[in-house]
């Protein structure tokens, strides 16, 4: 761009960065406000909203809100529940969905094509449209536990985990990825006498790092942020995850500063996780765009 003088160039850069930064402020201001307010007593928090102080760590700062939030509600239990449910679901989902995708791509069996099209067809079903019939279904499902046969899955961990293990998108992501793996590799291992399980374990999965990361991140976001499903299937505090616990906590009429402390506790770890793995997060969302 020879026509542009250095001064002109610099001005354009300044304009560009200014625009980018102003937009960035729109996206961060509520989050900054949340974190800052979590350290302030309510009186000051409300007074600060009328000025820039709302976004600054100034005044009477303390961890009191955090202490109060944790004593008012079993926040630690909620966090444990969320981490447990999310972690287990992500692991089981990766295992079951990759196994199914492996079978769809590398194995030839009767019914393969019909089942694959059913799996892909489920992509157009929003969860919200099956939540109510699923609620009735899980309220009647049997389960064999420590005390023998029981009926009904409501108010358990399993009702939050098992229905979420297999989903069309995760299977689809693995199918797309497996399709691009070199076939020769599979056939060579087969010729050498490897079993299908060994090929899955030793050949395919070690090559699948990127799609595992993508599927894990998407599942993590869905599970950790889940609201509608646990809201209708879990009424007991002991099994509540953080997001539903939040609604319940809010009804206890805590101070705003306390709410901000709760919000900060359940949000900042995810944000930190995101900032560290930023590229992987963005790549995983972008890869859902392949399904057009």
């Amino acid at each position, binding site marked *: 761009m020879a026509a542009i003088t250095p001064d002109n160039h610099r001005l354009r*850069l300044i304009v*560009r960065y200014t625009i*980018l*930064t102003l*937009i*960035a402020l729109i*996206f*961060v201001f*509520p*989050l900054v*406000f949340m974190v800052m307010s979590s350290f302030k007593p309510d009186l000051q928090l409300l007074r600060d*909203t009328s*000025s820039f102080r709302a976004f600054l760590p100034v005044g009477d700062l303390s961890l009191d809100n955090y202490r109060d939030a944790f004593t008012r509600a079993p926040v630690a239990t909620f966090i444990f529940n969320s981490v447990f449910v999310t972690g287990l679901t992500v692991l089981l989902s990766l295992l*079951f969905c990759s*196994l*199914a995708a492996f*079978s*769809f791509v*590398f194995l030839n*069996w*009767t019914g*393969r094509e019909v089942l694959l099209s*059913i799996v892909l067809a*489920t992509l*157009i*079903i*929003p969860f*919200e*449209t*099956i*939540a*109510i*019939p*699923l*609620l*009735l*279904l899980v309220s009647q499902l049997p389960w064999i536990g420590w005390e023998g046969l029981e009926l009904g899955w409501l108010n358990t961990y399993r009702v939050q985990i098992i229905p*979420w293990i*297999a*989903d069309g998108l995760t*299977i689809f992501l693995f199918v797309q990825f497996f399709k691009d793996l070199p076939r020769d590799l599979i056939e060579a291992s087969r010729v050498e006498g490897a079993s*299908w399980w060994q090929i*899955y374990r030793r050949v395919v999965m070690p090559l699948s790092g990127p799609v595992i990361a993508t599927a894990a991140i998407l599942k993590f976001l869905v599970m*950790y942020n889940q*609201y*509608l499903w646990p809201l*209708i299937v879990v009424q007991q505090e002991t099994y509540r995850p953080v*997001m539903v616990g*939040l*609604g319940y906590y*809010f009804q206890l009429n805590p101070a705003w500063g306390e*709410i901000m402390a709760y*919000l900060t506790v*359940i*949000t900042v770890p995810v944000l930190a996780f995101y*900032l560290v793995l930023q590229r992987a997060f*963005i790549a995983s969302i972008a*890869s*859902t*765009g392949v399904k057009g």
Partner: protein
Amino acid sequence: MASKLVTSNRAGWTFAFPGVSLLTLFIVVPFFFAFFLSLTNQRLISPNPTEFVGLDNYRDLLSISVLSIEPEVDDAGVVLRDADGNPKYPRVRTFTRNNPDYKQYAGMREWFRWHSGETAKVIVATDVVFWNSLRNTLMFVVVVAPIQDALALGLALLINQRLRGINVYRAIYFMPVVVSIVVVSLLWRFLYAEDGLLNSILGALSFGLFEGRDWLGSPDTALGAIEAMSIWQAVGFHMVIWLSGLQTIPPTLYEVSRIEGASKWQTFRYVTWPGLRNTAILVLIVITMQAFALFAQIDVMTNGGPLDSTTTLVFQAVERGYAKQDISGGSAISVILFLLVLTISLVQRYLTREK
């Protein structure tokens, strides 16, 4: 391809079975179950056996009618008027409650009305709350889908330039996406409050000219406020999808248009936009599906109020199916929602098909 491989039914079924059976039990079965339940009187817990009721649930939801009401007249046939000179009308309930002459309107309530001359045209429906939820859901989709789509494209174009540190901005724009919508909703409840942050900011920006309002407390602004927040939260998601679409456009095309001396707009119109076709379809369908599913924001921020101005189809499905244990009524709304989503996706696909 797999067809070249030896048929191995045992291994194939064993590997696919766990995933496919879970997906069938928890997605496919409830999907068909919804259609079935919507034709019954099923409740979550009930001592009475479930009965097949045909299309009754749909009739209760969808019954809607126009009622023409003439103004009241006195004995001489002169129209009665109130203090402001407006004609007086008989109350709608005189038609819809125990009136043998108007059996078809029995049990209906007024949804809204307009006037044609002196005649009042009143839209009456059996389930006014359902119609409100349908209206709000469609309003939400119609507002959010195009605005969010366009803003996401704008941001993607902005981020797609070569600048030092651009990835930092990309990361920031995307940030709200990883924050739970429940957290975002509670946070914005505070921002939208009458003494909240938004009113202070708007007041400061307009040098005190702007008078604060209770954004979520008024039927005029509540849905709009939720729409704005929802766009704020999810626009980064679609920005990233647009961005990956932008990056599939070969750089040589841009080279050529630059050599040809194309303006920025021309480059966008003739190089960028045609390359984004498939992305455009995808983004539109995904946004539409997400918008139809509107629930958490409503549940956390307004509970459907004020005056049902923010209630939505999913909120009503949950309200009935879960809170009121009316599984069949909730299922009927779910089926209607699914058919709406399906129809709109098909229409979008048809309109954007390859010509």
